[in-house]
């Protein structure tokens, strides 16, 4: 589909919601009614259930760093100093010969040999409201359903792993809670558990009046009661109910995740919002959470782009370089896929407010970790950074690439949504081989 058509499709006001587009042939419903509930906890509703079983055993994890509003590629991964649109910042040498990045990211320049960078990203949407979900859903072909965000998709495909913690945690500034919207047609249970402002989710703390021994004792009583009830009954409901209690319990037993951070870590990651959240993200990964999204806001620099990036970039630079090195030192980088990206890049043209606007035509995405080739830079923009030269990649290609890095065969694995098989990534896209080991 060419971009023009895609744009038209996106502009149409659609009514369909996750509950829609069910294929209602009874024999198929029989399958999904069972898989819907039996799959509780993550692994139902795939056309290939055996794949799901296998993936649930995988120890691979994801750290997804979402730079909301649009990081300028020109002030970060793809600088064009001394050109028409280059802006005031210089570029600096990285640990990769011949590869230079903006001077605003000196720490990242020192770990460039660990990263894979694609400077040839071209996507469709140039508005936040449509771009943020479109990109995080992998912009699949329109089949009249709302696709899950990457985190919900991984939660569904790979389950919660061995930690029994919720599989998709979103560390962000602002409010926390249970964000079901990300899950799309997978249904609310694959939504994100959001940790807002570093605060624990509501009701996570044991009441003051209850000791840990008391808590264990009352849960033993509850489990005893559950066993008494179970005999002769359909296990489906009870198991689903027990699963959420177990997840809650696992979360409660990890209070340390929300404790005050180690001062040394704070110094390493940065004493600011993003540093704090990246640190929480690392702890979540350490605790075994399958997918962690760390969110940074405020990058929409339509005005005063250069001062904006001068203040934002160092925080990103420090937290990003710190977490990559930290994961490597802890031996976790080999099993953790790390991605840093926005919903689009920013216009090369500098507007009347000394800002840069939205630019999906030519921007950059960086990644590292499991399955990803290290020290590789692909894709190229023209001299002024306005368009991608030669081959470009769309978000669908990246979804295929990331699934491949996680050991998920995205060309064959399909969701089963009420009887309708749905590819997990755009069917016209494919993995980017140069980025994969």
């Amino acid at each position: 589909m060419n971009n023009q058509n895609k744009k038209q499709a996106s502009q149409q006001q659609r009514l369909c919601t996750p509950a829609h587009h069910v294929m209602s042939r009874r024999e198929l419903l029989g399958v999904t009614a069972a898989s819907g509930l039996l799959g509780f906890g993550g692994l139902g509703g795939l056309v290939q259930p055996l794949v799901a079983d296998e993936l649930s055993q995988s120890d691979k994890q994801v750290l997804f760093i979402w730079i909301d509003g649009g990081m300028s590629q020109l002030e970060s991964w793809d600088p064009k100093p001394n050109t028409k649109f280059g802006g005031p910042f210089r570029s600096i040498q990285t640990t990769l010969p011949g590869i230079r990045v903006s001077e605003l990211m000196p720490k990242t320049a020192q770990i460039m040999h660990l990263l894979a960078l694609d400077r040839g990203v071209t996507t469709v949407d140039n508005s936040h409201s449509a771009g943020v979900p479109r990109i995080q859903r992998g912009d699949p072909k329109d089949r009249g359903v709302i696709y899950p965000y990457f985190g919900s998709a991984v939660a569904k495909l790979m389950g919660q792993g061995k930690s029994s913690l919720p599989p998709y945690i979103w560390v962000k500034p602002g409010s926390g809670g249970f964000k079901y919207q990300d899950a799309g047609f997978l249904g609310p249970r694959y939504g994100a558990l959001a940790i807002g402002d570093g605060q624990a989710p509501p009701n996570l703390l044991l009441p003051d009046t209850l000791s840990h021994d008391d808590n264990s004792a009352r849960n033993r009583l509850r489990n005893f009661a559950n066993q008494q009830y179970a005999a002769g009954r359909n296990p489906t409901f009870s198991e689903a109910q027990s699963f959420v209690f177990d997840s809650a319990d696992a979360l409660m037993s990890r209070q340390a995740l929300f404790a005050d951070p180690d001062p040394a870590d704070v110094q390493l990651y940065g004493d600011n919002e993003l540093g704090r959240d990246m640190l929480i993200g690392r702890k979540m990964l350490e605790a075994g959470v399958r997918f962690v999204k760390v969110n940074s806001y405020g990058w929409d620099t339509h005005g005063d782009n250069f001062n904006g990036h001068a203040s934002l970039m160092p925080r990103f630079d420090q937290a990003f370089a710190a977490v990559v090195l930290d994961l490597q030192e802890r031996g976790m980088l080999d099993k953790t896929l790390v991605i840093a990206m926005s919903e689009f890049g920013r216009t090369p043209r500098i507007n009347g407010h000394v800002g840069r606007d939205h630019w999906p035509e030519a921007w950059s995405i960086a990644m590292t970790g499991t399955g990803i080739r290290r020290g590789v830079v692909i894709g190229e923009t023209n001299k002024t950074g306005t368009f991608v030269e030669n081959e470009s990649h769309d978000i669908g290609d990246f979804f295929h690439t990331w699934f491949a890095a996680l050991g998920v065969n995205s060309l064959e694995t399909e969701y089963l949504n009420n009887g309708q098989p749905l590819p997990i990534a755009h069917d016209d896209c494919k993995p980017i081989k140069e980025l994969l080991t």
Partner: protein
Amino acid sequence: MTRLRLSCGIIFIFVIALCAPSPARSEELHSAIDRLIEDSTDGIFAEQATDFEFLRRIFLDLTGEIPAPSDVTDFVGSSSVNKRTELIDRLLKDERYPRRMSELFNVMLMERRGTDPAWKRFLVDSFKTNRHWDSLVKTIIQPDLANENEQGAGYFLTKRLEKYGQNPTDFPGLASDIGRLFMGVDLACAQCHDHLFIDEYRQSDFQGLYAFVTNTFIRTDTQFPAIGQKVMKKPLEFQSVFEEEMFTTGPRLPGGVELEVPEYDNKNEFAVAPDPQSKAPGVPAFNPLHYLASTLPTSKNPRFQINLVNRIWASMMGTGLVWPLDQHHNDNPATHPKILSLMAAEFAQHDFDIKWLFRQLMLTKAYQRSSILLSPLGDIQKAEAEYRVFRERALSPEQLMWSVLKATGTESRYPIELEGDSKLETTLPTTIEQVAEHFIASFANPPREPEVEFAPSVRGSLFLLNSELVQSWVNNGGDNSTEQLLKISDNTEVIDSLYITVLSRPPTPVELNNMREFLLSHPNRPDAIAQLVWALLSCNEFLINH
């Protein structure tokens, strides 16, 4: 256009023609349902539910809460042969019945979009006076605004016309919901083209329904939710995304006759002229909503007949005869078509009397069966599909709230406040409305997601495990159940009373022993009893309607 309209009309007439077998005159609906269930299977049936299980189930379904201990002893102790029927009849007259029904229908119709005091009053009053389903729907579409009891009914429409987020006014969503909730057809996917999988869901049907609501708006001159209509001057134009040809349609029910949009000159376009003084909008001479209200909810509309019986069946039996509930069409036939058509026909014959329908369903053996299938165990899903065993259901957030308050003996702490909207507060709530906010935040589905599937969540578990509110109910004090139980010195009696209070049944010997041991081993008796109350509140048996 004529071609299109004709073909659709014909298809619809054939598709949904009711072929109800005519029952023997003396046979009541509930007996016929049981006969049809028994005829359709050779499998083994579960026993009838025990008095305890039946009592809890019927209380949850008709009063919205578990029975009080005295209800348990009275019912089980009664030796009347007809005690189940007598109980059903008593609870259908219980003062909690309108509350329970208003909660059930509010969730079904509003799908957690929010609430409004006038709407709530309308629903409660409707079930108090046993307003029939056709009248209920008619009133929702076109309330008599002079009648105080009907004023809130417009909320169904106004709430859906409110903007949320950055979305434009969702007229298509409103049209779709009228199809889904009142006729059991989800035409949303036929908005832009004929439905891709479902032959009889035509774009012209969606657009015909859409034409009824495109000219509606929220009135700003009333103190309660109300709808006004702009003048419809010409038929609606539409086009399939797959074709070039333009079509037009006036308002039309799926399968029905298209209304011709008349041409009026400016002088005559209003039946009641707008009043600039009071800012009341006029009533157009051509009034699509009036037509919708007088033709949709009638026995002449087979889709209307069938929709609610299937929905009520699903809410009492755990799944619809047609499932999903808004997917009535040829490729998705009912599991038990004769039951469905018989129920629909009789419901219409009884003038859409909802109370009658509930009574008939609850009198069936199918409803009164046990949720335990002794053997063979592996067969339980098949047994459920054949209604040979009672299918477990989730408690709604409202049922759970009333039941938790009842079990903990804390109901009287919260005065009922029908007026005023409450918002979640950080301090402990003081009214039942505020308590309900907590339960909805912890257990309800997100807005616009039908609550038809069992979807427990971590947030609900954390609420039960750790919230200050739940602790304030189970911890000793304020004359709650824990305090009452503390007054009993004999441990066996404590456990007996605990089980009757929370689980509405006596403990088994194993349970008695286990819980008694816990009491003996615990150094602090008030804490021990609080934990026992909590454990039974949080166990599956309590959280499920079985």
